């Protein structure tokens, strides 16, 4: 995990803080954004191994921008974080992770899609 960078895009402040803390605790380098606009700014100035993207953001939906992100950054893994239990997985994302799931499972999935 050392050296691998994750960008978390999550507008819920408490969720963002806790996920960033958990990810940093296991050795990832992490950055956070609260909106798609902030995400674009960070993607334009940095490189990441994984984009963790909330499905519902104040300025748009994560799944709607995933195809464009995939085209621009084909080597970056993309996972959608959702509060919906039935969000279908498209070819443009590597995983759909449900909020409220066991954090240990989330970490396993994150490790899996970054291999």
């Amino acid at each position, binding site marked *: 995990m050392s050296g691998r960078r994750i960008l978390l895009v999550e507008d*819920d402040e408490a969720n963002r803080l806790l996920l960033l803390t*958990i990810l940093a605790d296991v050795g990832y380098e992490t950055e956070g954004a609260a909106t798609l606009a902030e995400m674009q700014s960070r993607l334009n100035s940095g490189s990441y191994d994984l984009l963790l993207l909330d499905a519902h953001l104040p300025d748009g939906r994560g799944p709607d921008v995933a195809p464009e992100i995939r085209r621009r950054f084909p080597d970056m893994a993309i996972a959608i974080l959702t509060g919906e239990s*039935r969000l279908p997985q498209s070819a443009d994302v590597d995983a759909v992770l449900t909020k*409220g799931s066991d954090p240990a499972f989330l970490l396993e999935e994150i490790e899996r899609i970054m291999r």
Partner: protein
Amino acid sequence: MLIRDSSLYHLSQAYVSEEATANLRHQLRNRIGVIRNASFFLRKAFEGSQDAQLRDEAQIHEFFDLIDGQLGDMTRSISDNVVPVDLEGMTSICDIASVIGALTSKLNAPAGLNLQWHLVPAEGDVDPAELQLAVLCLIENAAEAMTAGGDVIVRTSTLPDGRVSISVETNREPISSEVLSRAFEPFFTTKPGHLGLGLNVARRVARRYGGTMELSNREGEGTRALLTIRAPRSDPSAGSVS
């Protein structure tokens, strides 16, 4: 209430109910996620503690198991029992102007509200009832903000790229920037007794048809709610990108 057509009324109730449920599911999962993640982190901190008495305290481990078990049960319950309802109807190629024009016989305009229809033929691939519901939400939203009456103008047009545009314009006073920024926040409303989901329902319908939903102040005077849907026969997987 503007609606005088019972099937449209029941459709609106179903959409509002599903929108409310979807938002509550989302909020519940967010809150459960926060607690579960915090518990996970704290448990790791305890298990790594230098203080053996604290680290090995059985009741602390029992309580962490309790928290995780309860939250896990709640998450599964949401997945199993609070399931999305499939409201999507059958679509067909139709004239959007005719679909929306049919609303005139399904609405009771309140006294003082001057409802005008400027409907230009425009082809779309939609479920007519669903699109009528979306436009109804926008008309209701406008009417409820104009308690002293005024003009509400419904327009249709085809955009240069083939998308269909449906706008509901008013001559009311401008919406404040604070209200505009929160307009699509679920359950946000400036009208007591209202759920605050009408714009969300309209946006859900727009997104289903690969389109967008915006609310803005018009230059000079009034407001505009603008709903677009993708051109008929376009690739349905080419959804809108915000």
